[in-house]
């Protein structure tokens, strides 16, 4: 590498540590199902992928979508329906979910992209609420009950997903591929343009970039990856429900990002793990879930403002951590 930009130097300073941690993380995930309840880890992985997909948009493009549940839940419904009603194999179901999410993303993005900031968020929210309404009313979603008992099937006709460990490693693979995709997109020439649009949109236009198209492309990519996460979740839990298309779900993924650290690669994963873990532990603890969650958010905002990972970056890894305090 002949020239190091500032960004790259920052990374260079911590790159070995970071890669080391990532490798450690992957190893931990490979070993995890032997120590932790695998279904729980799979849930974390699905949400972590969802959070990463969202981060692609918020952290690296500066677009705050308040409607991402549409893609997550929409893909889950599509996949669950295709697999259950039409007897599609799981891989086809997941791809369909992902494609459907991308399509929904295209429509929502197309409408929302002309607006900025909070207005962008609000249009996505409004459209997501309409999609929610559709899901409540449409017969195929089976209303409150959701699509239950989705068969896991056999992947490519060989891997029996009913075996928990098989399912686990498939989910892990999907997760890793998804996260790699986000990483690649962010650290690509395209990602560079996204970043500059986030920084100064007018300037990017005057440099000749059709900003709308870049944003839309990022939006669709993020939607597709969110869909991948949602469809996978539907297969894992054999379930697609309204929960996944509510605005609270859109909110939850924002929280995961904020907790973990916006604009960092690992942050959303940590955030998702934390939120999911918390929900799980507290559900059976007798302590009111909401109070604990609320307190954690408050404390995080006051103390770990950049999110947990963002804060670690900022304090120990680099003075000029990117993105932690802006959105």
């Amino acid at each position, binding site marked *: *590498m*002949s*020239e*190091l*930009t*500032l*960004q*790259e*130097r920052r990374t260079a300073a911590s790159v070995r540590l970071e890669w080391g941690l990532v490798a450690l993380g992957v190893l931990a995930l490979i070993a995890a199902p032997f120590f932790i309840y695998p279904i729980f880890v799979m849930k974390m992985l699905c949400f972590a992928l969802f959070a990463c997909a969202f981060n692609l948009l918020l952290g690296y493009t500066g677009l705050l979508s308040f409607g991402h549940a549409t893609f997550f839940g929409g893909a889950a419904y599509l996949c669950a329906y295709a697999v259950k009603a039409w007897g599609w194999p799981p891989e086809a179901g997941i791809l369909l979910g992902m494609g459907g999410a991308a399509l929904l993303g295209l429509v929502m993005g197309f409408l929302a992209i002309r607006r900025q900031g909070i207005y962008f968020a609000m249009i996505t929210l409004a459209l997501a609420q309409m999609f929610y309404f559709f899901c409540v009313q449409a017969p195929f979603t089976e209303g409150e009950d959701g699509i239950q008992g989705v068969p896991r099937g056999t992947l490519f006709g060989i891997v029996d997903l009913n075996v928990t460990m098989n399912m686990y490693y498939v989910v892990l693979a999907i997760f890793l591929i998804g996260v790699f995709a986000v990483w*690649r*997109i962010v*650290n*690509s*020439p*395209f*990602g*560079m*343009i996204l*970043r*500059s649009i986030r*920084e*100064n949109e*007018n*300037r*990017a*236009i*005057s*440099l*000749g*970039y*059709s*900003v709308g198209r*870049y944003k839309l*492309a990022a939006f669709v*990519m993020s939607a597709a990856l969110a869909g991948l996460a949602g469809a996978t979740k539907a297969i894992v839990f054999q379930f697609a429900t309204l929960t996944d298309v509510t605005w609270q779900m859109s909110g939850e993924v924002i929280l995961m990002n904020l907790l973990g650290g916006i604009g960092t690669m690992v942050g959303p994963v940590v955030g998702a793990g934390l939120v999911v873990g918390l929900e799980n532990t507290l559900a059976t603890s007798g302590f009111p879930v909401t109070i604990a969650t609320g307190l954690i958010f408050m404390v995080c905002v006051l103390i770990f403002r950049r999110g947990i990972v963002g804060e670690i970056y900022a304090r120990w890894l680099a003075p*000029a951590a*990117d*993105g932690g305090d*802006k959105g």
Partner: protein
Amino acid sequence: MKTATAAAVQPDGDQDVPRVVLSARGLRRDFAGFVAVNSVDLDVHHGKIHALIGPNGAGKTTIFNLLTKFLQPTSGRIELLGTDITRTSPAKVARMGLVRSFQISAIFPHLSVLDNVRVALQRPSGLGFQFWRSLSALDELTPRARELLGIVGLDDAANRLAGDLSYGRKRVLEIATTLALDPKVLLLDEPMAGMGHEDVGTISGIIRSLARDRAVLMVEHNLTVVADLCDWITVMQRGQVLAAGDYATVSQDERVRIAYMGTEHE
């Protein structure tokens, strides 16, 4: 009428027939009942530096916005290199070679200085949408970026965050970014504002050399610079063209003196 003179009075014995690269006819823009620009005709020639001056609020920036399509004209017609761009998107116009700088400096504050320039180089190189390649794909742009930074004297700051530069150096950076696009027509909105004397000299030099094979339209209040640099001057007042000509002509114009230059300027 003014344009006719413009063509006729082209100075110097340039071999080239002076080529109009950007022209506007009957340009008008209203803001909620207020007419900011009113029936303005303008021709910008290849190889020339054209100044747009006038008192504050005369509509200069608005004209820039209209020409670069950041604003839609209420009426009128704009042509760039013989193509009608009256209804074209700003990004498209930029790709066609009409690039502007902003009055308030426009950079990407959280990118490094080098990356600021590379982002600009990225577009013509077609690397914009490549989301599957690694960032090192951009390394091929680095030498050119360095070169451009060298031209404006920012090579020592290549790795600093652009946002940490002082105001003046930010403007210089903006010019470097603009250069990266190798534009055919360059619109500069007060490029010297907020700059020290030495920098003014540097920038003047850069602009002069740039104008050799492209057209430059600039807004500038520093009359010394205008006198020194510009081949042709359009003076605006209250949205309209008040006078046009070379510096000598314009500066003798009584109306211009009253409306703009003041009494002190010789």
